[in-house]
């Protein structure tokens, strides 16, 4: 979108307070955004370390480093930490920083609640991670915590897991209410819905999905709690319930959840591609409609995660066709990104490199998703490494690349300093190569029949697992470089201009870099 700014004034009087209480008591969307991003990075490293434990064990067949019980705990916590601790908070952090700047609001609509949404999270993860030190160990039933593994056969720490999920959900719901209210109520005069930047649009839809499905997850873990401790039979067939019911409720949450982790990435990518192609984004309106359609469809495709569980034929067919339908709006988006680049004068700064890699590699993840959507084919692929490869392609070079692209794109605005372009490109190429070394071979071992979630495997899978582990350690090491680049940018560097990029569009680029502590206390006018 192109917004022409007529006038705005800023409030230069208030700087941030000093000391630790600045961060504990803050109501400032920029501070809270920063907190979210740092929490997310810390969780990314913790979850990443767990992934490396997994990959190290899988380096060669046979058991060599960890006990199978501990492997299961690592597998479970890796998934939970990455989903709820790394990807989601990173997007909320970006939303906190950018949504008020992009819609011309003085802050988030409910600033105190915004602080609460953040500060719940460190406590929630303390509760979750403390389960590692409890009797019986941490949750060991996989991040999808299917009953009865998570009920009848769960370690005692499952109770702590349940309550940590409850407060993470409370945090997400409050955060999403804040985002929606900010977007609906705080837009600068003249910024109609169809003039909103796409990152704002993507977050409006994401927040709606979050408010719709986080309570359902709360319901699922509550039923688990009651089944485990108070004798109910929700997931117990002996009492007339059904373990499959758990899967239905979980995936009714879980499928919208995976779009929660990708829609904001769509928004970020759209901004970056139009900026570095020096063209207006192709098909703005269709982008909005595509995201809306994806969100609506996400509510009616959940059982494609459960094709092999034994559903009636009509359900298998319905969920197959509904799932394949999602390829249409997603295809529209990929088409629009490519068409935006077509005949553009493209330059390849780090954010653009990450964004282009996002488009290519996310599309690969989308295609393997399409393969998995075909019910009879899924009977073959189900619970193999092909699935692991699929969702890591959409989450790592998908969501996480988009988050990194967003950080490189906006960090000059946040800090006032340019990041080191040479190091940024090095970080990109290391990540890009190693992510493919890690996950591409998993397609092959998966198609050859290697099941997921086991600490050991048959000999014929040895070579590609070794390659995959080497890639994973390279990828892990590359992220230390990312930390170094961010810290270096915080310390100093070439000063950034207000526009930062040659062809940047949108309200945030009208502010100086770094922006004053309070921005848009008087709303700007948008034509």
């Amino acid at each position, binding site marked *: 979108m192109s917004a022409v700014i007529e006038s705005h004034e800023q409030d230069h009087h208030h700087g941030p307070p000093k000391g630790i209480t600045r961060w504990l008591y803050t109501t400032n969307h920029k501070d809270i955004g920063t907190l979210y991003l740092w929490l997310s990075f810390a969780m990314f490293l913790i979850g990443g370390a767990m992934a490396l434990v997994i990959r190290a064990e899988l380096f060669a067949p046979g058991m060599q480093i960890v006990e199978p019980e501990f492997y299961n705990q690592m597998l479970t916590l890796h998934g939970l930490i990455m989903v709820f601790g790394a990807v989601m908070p990173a997007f909320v952090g970006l939303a906190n920083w950018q949504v008020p700047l992009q819609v011309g609001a003085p802050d988030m609509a409910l600033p105190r609640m915004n602080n609460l949404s953040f500060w719940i999270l460190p406590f929630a993860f303390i509760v979750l991670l403390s389960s590692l030190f409890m009797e019986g160990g941490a949750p060991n039933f996989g991040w999808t915590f299917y009953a009865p593994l998570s009920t009848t056969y769960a370690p005692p720490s499952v109770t702590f897991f349940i309550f940590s999920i409850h407060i993470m959900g409370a945090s997400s719901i409050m955060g999403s*209410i804040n985002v929606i209210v900010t977007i609906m109520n705080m837009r600068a005069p003249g910024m109609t819905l169809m003039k909103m930047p796409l990152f704002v649009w993507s977050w409006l839809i994401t927040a709606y999905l979050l408010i*719709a499905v986080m*309570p359902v997850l709360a319901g699922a873990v509550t039923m688990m709690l009651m089944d485990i401790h108070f004798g109910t039979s929700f997931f117990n*067939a002996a*009492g*007339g319930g059904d373990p499959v019911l758990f899967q239905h409720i979980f995936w009714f949450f879980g499928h919208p959840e995976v779009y929660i982790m990708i829609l904001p990435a769509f928004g970020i990518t759209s901004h970056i591609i139009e900026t570095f192609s020096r063209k207006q984004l192709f098909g703005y309106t269709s982008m909005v409609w595509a995201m809306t359609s994806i969100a609506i469809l996400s509510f009616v495709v959940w059982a494609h995660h459960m094709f092999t569980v034994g559903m009636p034929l009509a359900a298998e067919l319905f969920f197959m066709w509904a799932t394949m339908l999602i390829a249409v709006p997603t295809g529209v988006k990929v088409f629009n990104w490519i068409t935006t680049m077509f005949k553009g004068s493209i330059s390849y700064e780090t954010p653009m490199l990450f964004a282009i890699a996002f488009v290519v590699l996310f599309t690969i993840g989308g295609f393997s998703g399409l393969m998995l959507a075909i019910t009879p084919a899924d009977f073959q692929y189900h619970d193999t490494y092909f699935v692991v490869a699929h969702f890591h392609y959409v989450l790592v070079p998908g969501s996480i690349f988009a988050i990194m692209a967003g950080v490189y794109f906006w960090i000059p605005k946040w800090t006032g300093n340019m990041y080191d372009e040479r190091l940024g490109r090095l970080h990109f190429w290391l990540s890009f190569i190693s992510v493919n070394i890690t996950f591409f071979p998993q397609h092959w071992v998966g198609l050859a029949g290697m099941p997921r979630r086991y600490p050991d495997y048959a000999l014929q899978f040895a070579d590609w697992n070794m390659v995959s582990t080497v890639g994973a350690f390279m990828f892990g090491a590359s992220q230390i470089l990312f930390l170094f680049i961010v810290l270096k940018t915080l310390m100093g560097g070439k000063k950034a201009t207000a526009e930062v990029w040659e062809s940047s569009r949108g309200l945030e680029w009208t502010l100086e870099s770094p922006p004053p502590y309070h921005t848009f206390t008087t709303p700007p006018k948008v034509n």
Partner: protein
Amino acid sequence: MSYQKYYVPESSRYPIFAAIALFLLVTGAASTINDLGKPDSNSVYILYSGFAVFAITLFFWFRTVTKEHLVGLDSAQLKKSFVFGMAWFIFSEVMFFAAFFGALFYVRNFAVPWLGGEGEKGLANILWEGFEASWPVMSTPDLGSAFSLPEKNMSWPGWGHAMEWLPLWNTVVLLSSSVTVHFAHLALKNNNKRVFNIWLGITVGLALTFVGLQVAEYYEAYAHYGLTLNSGIYGSTFFMLTGFHGFHVMMGGFMLSVMLCRSVFYNHFDPHDHFGFEAASWYWHFVDVVWVMLFLFVYIL
């Protein structure tokens, strides 16, 4: 265009205290539940302390927001944020109940018939041959000692016994409370504070009556019907759906009584400015609608 400054508080201590309170609440709740049956466990005090810190924090937090409003710090735009915020909060509550209604729908239409040998996945009957599907499920598929089978259920007892059927009276009480809270709202709009207080007081009284009747119903179920959380899927869905609803009635009733106290003791609210009351009454109407759904799907059908 006219423009009012949007109020952004400089900083606030309340959220971090609320977060600490939630931390104490969940660790306290989890360790209390894990320690059930251990008489020497002190975990419950963590739970109590979390509850106390949470209650105190929320009290001061809401008091501050009310005070800010009374001195005119906020604007029409901020009020709109509260309106949107409350509406989306209620939507999240709707989705929470949707999970439990969805579970009820699934077990009634799929899980139980399949276990009884009916339908496309009726093969499940080989697990417990002889189990016959019916709703309410009065006999669990597995007849082992894990379950206490109920003698009676809470469903519609037929016209002959309608008058002594508690859920009917619960429905009457709750539906009329939605009407009385609306009368209170009308009185407030007509600037008749005395009538407002009376109708609001009646509403709070009806809320208490409902909770009392619900307690009586639970007592009846446990003491005379043998219907408990242990009674298989019917008891599970019955107590969880009505239980969460009852909990929400208590929260809604508490909100309304806070509004009553603000009106009676502090003379808050005027005909054009009473969103605190309106939010509580929306919540009350929401709780009422959930009851109508419960009455239909848990009791009648």
